[in-house]
């Protein structure tokens, strides 16, 4: 098949400049990445950006609407809540909890799940059977019940939540990794490594793991959105972030009683969650195509074709 040989190079090591160009061409991916970067900056520099301390209450200015609504003022751009706290400041500080929990949970669950998946897939046999049954049990166990159990024993808090969410999220990594390892194990280059006398650990970490990076990157990013949503849900239920600390989920929970009186209390934190998840998904979609050599070539060719149609130069490109 000549076509395949020409158009599907083996995953080549990515260099920076062409990647940047490609991202520039894909506007939705670029938008996603831009928002993610802005959110990260916002979380890091929250104390500098926020106009107020998010926890300071002011009884005199309770339930002020955003500035463009009648009764709102420029002092509180997005209004205030039932305790007079500035909504904008809370949204900015809330990003910290959401992003912190998101990254730590993905890192923790990812490491644990990937390691177990690697060993299950590579060793096979009884090791595999035991690890995968563990995964099955964990998947079958209701996540919420486990969370309730742990939180009621240890008590709620950011660290607890990270550990708890990691406990309920590692299985998907283990399953994905095991599946891919089973195929990579069969590949000739892994056999070659074994035949030359490499020890198992060297084979796993030097030959198997690097070839997992693309699917893992995509999975990790998609899982991040799940964790952000789970954090919101837990905080909403009162099992996560505890006041006076703040998070988007917590604010949505607090604002629910005022939904008909002050719509802005849940709208802005809710919108933040939605935008974060959406932009991550946009970026992940771009990344998925980029890490699949065949999809990547097709995308490139489609763009080329569109450019050609736009420039309306019919049939002058002859060999």
């Amino acid at each position: 098949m000549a076509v395949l040989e020409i158009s599907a190079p083996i995953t080549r090591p990515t260099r920076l400049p062409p990647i940047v160009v490609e991202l520039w061409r894909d506007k939705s991916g670029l938008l996603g990445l831009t928002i993610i970067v802005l959110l990260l900056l916002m979380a890091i520099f929250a104390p500098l950006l926020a106009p107020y301390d998010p926890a300071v209450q002011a009884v005199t200015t309770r339930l002020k609407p955003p500035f463009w609504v009648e009764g709102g003022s420029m002092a509180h751009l997005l209004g205030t809540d039932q305790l007079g706290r500035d909504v904008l400041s809370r949204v900015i500080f809330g990003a910290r909890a959401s992003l912190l929990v998101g990254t730590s949970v993905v890192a923790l669950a990812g490491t644990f799940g990937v390691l177990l998946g690697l060993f299950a897939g590579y060793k096979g046999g009884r090791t595999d059977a035991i690890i995968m049954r563990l995964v099955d049990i964990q998947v079958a166990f209701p996540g919420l019940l486990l969370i309730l159990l742990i939180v009621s024993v240890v008590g709620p808090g950011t660290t607890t939540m990270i550990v708890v969410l990691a406990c309920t999220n590692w299985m998907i990594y283990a399953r994905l990794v095991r599946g891919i390892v089973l195929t990579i194990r069969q590949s000739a280059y892994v056999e070659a490594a074994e035949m030359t006398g490499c020890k198992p650990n060297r084979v796993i970490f030097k030959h198997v793991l690097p070839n997992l990076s693309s699917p893992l990157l995509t999975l990790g990013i998609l899982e991040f959105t799940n964790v952000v949503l789970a954090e919101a849900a837990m905080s909403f239920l009162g099992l996560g972030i505890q006041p006076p600390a703040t998070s988007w989920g917590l604010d949505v929970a607090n604002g629910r009683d005022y939904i008909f009186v002050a719509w802005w209390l849940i709208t802005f934190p809710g919108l933040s969650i939605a935008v974060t998840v959406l932009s991550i998904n946009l970026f992940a979609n771009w990344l998925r195509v980029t890490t699949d050599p065949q999809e990547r070539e097709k995308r490139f060719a489609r763009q080329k074709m569109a450019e050609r149609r736009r420039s309306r130069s019919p049939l002058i490109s002859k060999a």
Partner: protein
Amino acid sequence: MDMINEGALLEIDRLAVEFDTRRGVVYGLRGATLSIGRGETLAIVGESGSGKSVTAQAVMGLIDVPGRISGGDIRWKGETLLGPHGSRAARDIRGKEIALVFQDPMTSLNPLMKIGVQIGEVLRRHLGMSESEAHSRVLELLEAVGIPAPPRRAAQYPHELSGGMRQRVMIAMAIACEPQLLIADEPTTALDVTIQAQVLELLAGLQQTLKLSVLLITHDLGVVAGLCHRIAVMYAGRIVETGLADDVFNRPAHPYTQGLIRSTPRLDDHTDRLVSIEGAPPNMLAPPTGCAFRVRCPLAEARCEQEPPLVQSRTGATVACWRPDEAAWGIPAATPQARVKGNGYYDQMVAEYQPASVPAEAAAAASRPPVTPLLSVRDLGVDYEVSSPGFWGKARKISALKGISFDLYPGETLGLVGESGSGKTTTGRAVLRRLEASEGRIYFKGQDITNVHGDELRQLRRKMQLVFQDPYASLNPRMKILDIVAEPLIAHGVVRNSDEAREQITELLRLVGLSRDATDRFPYAFSGGQRQRVGIARALALKPEFIVADEPVSALDVSVRAQVVNLLQDLQKELGISYLFIAHDLSVVRHISHRVAILYSGRMVEIADRDSLYEHPRHPYTEALLSAVPVPHPETQRARKRLVYRGDIPDVSHWPAGCHFHGRCPLADERCSLQAPPLQGKADHLVACWHR
């Protein structure tokens, strides 16, 4: 060739196809011109990337993103198939008047549809037949393509059929609408030799009875020889030579055609060295200007940078060359090219090898030298687990290999030949202790290695290495060549990191014919042949005494294949390495081996000195195998007696009792179906048959 050929069925006129890739435009076809007359069989021969498959895809309208037709025309009976008007006409013609048979019959059939229903669908859609009409026609078609018991087969799913049967089904589907042109894209490449012979015979028969035109696309000159009227040779997206089959084979005019024919190993001739076309197939991102072959051509001169003219050769073939009909390839050099001496690592390597092994010449001269064998295998058997053991249970096992015995002497090459499922790869892996032997013993230099484990086994691995079939899959895509070749040295603690081994690696790469700047590049930057050289360098890194080469050239193009075969022979002459050379291609094996063993369905049926086996095969299966290999020479091929045995290779899970070949064997009697024959005979020619 005249452009407007009145009798022509299909004309391809200066067709150009381009692929937009991130690295730039890849030129798939660069103005290919050819035509096929009614009832004619034309073969397009070329190597990977030459554009032969792209041609077929363009005719069938299968060029899809990222490819596009950027110039030229395709005409069917004088009417164009391109453009808005053409593509409407094309939809009716394609599938009905032009049919296509693919290379891989497994992926081209819908696994969820019964065979009969799949063929019936074509009939109902294109010819508007009713269900019952279609059904009876399906049975006729299956009969016509030689499928036994059509009603039973029609009710089966694709996975229940063997590869050869599936290809027959594909052909039945293709001829269902009584097309005028059948395009067969590598129709037998995925099949075993004896099955390939059956399918080729079928194609030739159908061509006669149905008055079909056939466009056969292949890389295998042998397949072409007996079957085709005309041949078109493609190189770098152009047709470089078109002529009558006999003329092209007997007096090839283009240097590339000459090289292609001379580099194809032939079963009926065994010059020790093959012509190899140096260099790699062109990079189609930036094909050379003028004649694309000039960079590899021994006749190249200044004017070759200009577009070559189309001229008539002595035989009347059309050739695109400035110097047609000149002999481009002399007698191949018997010794490898003089190497630039490096830092002495290579000399030291040669010196270290010598005391351990007897010089290759001596080993070959005395057919049974009084040395102890390097490797002895006695009654080797391997079982496969067909179901995983579950948590507590035991795995169900089937026997994949049984009663294999042979010796391999220092500096010798033993060819191990068999079709798929014969257990040849299993044998190689078991000998290397990659697979556990379930019975029998393996001795390496007199030491029983059947049960060594752990560190002892790792030490043993230094002495025996493996060269893989697939040069693409066997190199880790994320490692540099330096790291890949250094991996064995690091694994055995010879060096701590790959930079420490840089000098040695450079020397090893030089030994296999790669330049110094290869070290810091990634595998994707290399062609198949170059990658195979990297694989060989990796196998050599630990200075092994014994290498299992598992189909090392079957994934390579013909011209590159010769390079690698020659390299392996040179290395053996210089380093005295022993090879277990596993292959399904009897012609290559004849070139490289001193002795040859034939496997069939997990049993060894014959083992003998090379010439003895090829000149006087004794087992009926060996005879069938030898007669099935197509010889790339039309007259020889037509004159040969073909033994085409019916039936399929038995599946590993349903081995018959007695001799495994008895179901297909013309000599079989009752005893063959009850009792397995032992391997017996004179010392240098053993055969497992009750009748020979």
